[in-house]
């Protein structure tokens, strides 16, 4: 329980990747942290570090974050080699220090993938994901064209599967965790969400072929079914979506008459 822990401050050693800019060589630097409250979130611990660094005139560590409630997908970090750290279904911002022990050494790196180049320290450029969505992750419907929402019934099973895929937060942990830096889980989540719904039907083949082509163009690797992506995914997007992506792709290139 929270309250009984509050006096048990943690002493930690942090090894953090510091890199002043995209084309500058980086290195690990070591920092000592004293008396860290177990109730702190991981990012609050980094806030404390940055306040210390400012006091000693060292530039604070750059890291992406925003909502700090696990939904915006902006936070990242490889923590001891694991994307978003040790907890399943948890973003870095939702990871709390009570997960660590006094005396621990924690290694903190940016996402590892050449398609996500480092901007500075722990912040990376994930705009490749936006370009993949731009290639077809949508339904072509203009504002004002829609029929009454209940004219389009969707069975509850399908809706729930679609929602489970749509839950992807676009953080890139799947890519960072994959030894091939594959983006298949991310792409499959959007393809699945729309392939499962009647709304996605008209553009089904075009969508999947264009998104896969963009994914390849961005330099993401192929999928070799090791499922690290699923294990790292904070939104618990399932690898069954990758199977569906493969089926959708095959359907599009072999049997579709959409003229892709």
């Amino acid at each position, binding site marked *: 329980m*929270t*309250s009984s822990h*509050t006096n048990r401050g943690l002493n930690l050693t942090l090894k953090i990747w510091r890199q002043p*800019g995209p084309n500058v060589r980086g290195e690990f630097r070591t920092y000592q942290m004293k008396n860290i*409250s177990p*109730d*702190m979130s991981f*990012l*609050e611990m980094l806030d404390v570090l*940055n*306040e210390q660094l*400012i006091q000693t*005139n060292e*530039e*604070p560590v*750059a890291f992406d974050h*925003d*909502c*700090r*409630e*696990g*939904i*915006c*997908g*902006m936070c990242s970090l490889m923590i001891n080699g694991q994307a978003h750290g040790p*907890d399943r*279904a948890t973003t870095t911002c*939702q990871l*709390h220090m*009570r997960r660590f022990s006094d005396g621990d050494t924690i290694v903190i790196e940016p996402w590892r993938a050449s398609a996500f180049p480092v*901007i*500075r320290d722990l912040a990376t*450029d*994930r*705009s490749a*994901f*936006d370009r993949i*969505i*731009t290639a077809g992750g*949508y*339904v072509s*419907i*203009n*504002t*004002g064209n*829609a*029929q009454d*929402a*209940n004219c389009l*019934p*969707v*069975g*509850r099973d399908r809706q729930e599967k*679609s*929602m489970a895929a*749509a*839950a992807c*937060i676009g953080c890139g942990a799947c890519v960072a965790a994959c030894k091939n830096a594959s983006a298949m889980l991310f792409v499959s989540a959007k393809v699945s*969400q729309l392939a499962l*719904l009647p709304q996605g039907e008209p553009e089904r083949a075009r969508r999947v072929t264009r998104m896969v082509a963009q994914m390849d163009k961005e330099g993401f690797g192929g999928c070799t079914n090791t499922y690290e992506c699923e294990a790292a995914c904070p939104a618990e997007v399932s690898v069954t979506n990758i199977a569906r992506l493969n089926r959708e792709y095959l359907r599009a290139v072999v049997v579709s008459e959409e003229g892709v």
Partner: protein
Amino acid sequence: MAEVTTTTNGSSRLQSNAPTGDITTRWDRHKFDLKLVNPSNKRKFNIIVVGTGLAGASAAASLAELGYNVKAFCFQDSPRRAHSIAAQGGINAAKNYCNDGDSVWRLFYDTVKGGDFRARESNVYRLASVSTNIIDQCVAQGVPFQRDYGGLLANRSFGGAQVSRTFYARGQTGQQLLLGAYSALMRQVDLGKVKLFARREMLDLIKVDGVARGIVVRNLVTGEFESHTGDAVLLCTGGYGNVFYLSTNAKGCNVTAAWRCHKRGAFFANPCFTQIHPTCIPVSGDHQSKLTLMSESLRNDGRVWVPKNPGDVRAANEIPDDDRDYFLERRYAAFGNLVPRDVASRAAKKACDEGFGVGETKLAVYLDFRDTIKRDGAAVVKGKYGNLFQMYAKITGEDPYSTPMRIYPAVHYTMGGLWVDYNLQTTIPGLYCLGEANFSDHGANRLGASALMQGLADGYFVIPYTIGHHLATSKLPKIADDHPDVRGAVEAAKARVTKMLGIQGSRSVESFHRALGKIMWEKCGMARNEAGLKYAEQEIAALRHEFWNNVRVMGTGEAFNQNLEHAGRVADFLEFGELLVHDALTREESCGGHFREEHQTEESEAKRNDTDFCHAAAWEYTGGHDSFVGEKEQLHKEALSFENVHLTTRSYRE
């Protein structure tokens, strides 16, 4: 702060342009009266959209679909990150799918009443009437709303309403709606009609001949200053809750874009109308960097209580019903646990102030699911609220299935914002403001599941009609990049950054932000009084003075520098906070989220003053653009008239 008060309707600067007559046909008549831009001329106009949340993304996509050229800006690394994404519970729409007596009129009525009669009737009616189109639009985009087994859409209830009109996608409705709007936006990027500028922060507005013609942004990756010109500017930049430091907002949420526009002449309305959300996870220590909200939908099934005996040390589950005070059910029989947010928050504060609070800090009340779990089973509760329970467990280390949640109110939403007319245009021609950033629809208190509704109403269904009128009726000569007003705005933004970096003091930006938040929360939070507010005004001014003499901003301006970004936002909060406090001091009444201790009934309910304060307070900045301190603000009042929902004392008791 010097001020001159002008009288009701006396300010020619505040023309609401709201139609009169039968309220049910106002929007239709108004749309017909607006000038159109013909399809082949639309491609000649360039529109700048700042912010890519629900309002910004939906506006940018819809305007691009019409044929305008759009540039969309956000400070995050992707438009999909905007904080609309964190909205959990749902979105209201008057579909009456539940056959329980809902209608556009009832949604209109609930929203006006819920806002404690401080919103403009015309706007609220329009909002209620387009609410149904929003659901249709989102479903067509592939938003996977919750459905029943027959495949049709499901609904639930929210505070301040006695019907079920809230549509939802798990506890992630905001995420799904935003991803829908984002997909529409990215489709336009694909089609070449929208140019996207991520990791850009707006630092100033470019005004030429009194008309908004562009913006100055800083490229947050390279540090370069860029100017972008166009024919209209849309601010869709969200709320200012982070002036309190601790809030449920994302860390990056800020008032900078709106405040910079205010200093260029856009009036700021009702800044003191801030919403404190009742169901948030309590503060755990001094390290706290933000607060986490749990959806109000939890109050559908959770019961709020405190022990009857102050200092009861028993574990929650060991306290029998006879020793529990279900204070919302006791005080508000008709609405029970589903009273509006302001009422629920104040009741929790009152319980804690009187010594009944629970947990280590005693600043919390219980939200208990024991009875629902007994009635429906844990599986049903998990189905409805699983992700919220999981989030609570992650943050607190406690299991809400077996022990009641502890909750406490936190700053969540801001009803105030830039003043806009019925067309969503600010007092600067060509500058529009949408979504949470404007002041228009929620009065002094927003009802749950109405923020998503307003953001999308503004972006999908209002601005596409109203912006054409400005473009069709204004002279908008092309602005050269080296126009003196463009260069002037860029230089002003640069000078501010250079000045901040040059101070090289000893106190961190974070420390200033925390200190400001503490003043705001203690003196201008859930309860406010004259002495406290006057004290706060002085403290904020002093803190701002110290900031500009002693802040330490690390690094340089020519690089990715998050410390510098934060410094700029805090600098603006230090100016804006004073206006917020001053507005709270000036509004000598209690209404909605604004509770002045001097104005309450014997039962501690808010006491509104319709004789003197039935108006929107719109503040005009009258100082020079470059002055950092000693702001001068002049008050203008827009009188509010209630012809359709009659002014009554808001009661949720019976």
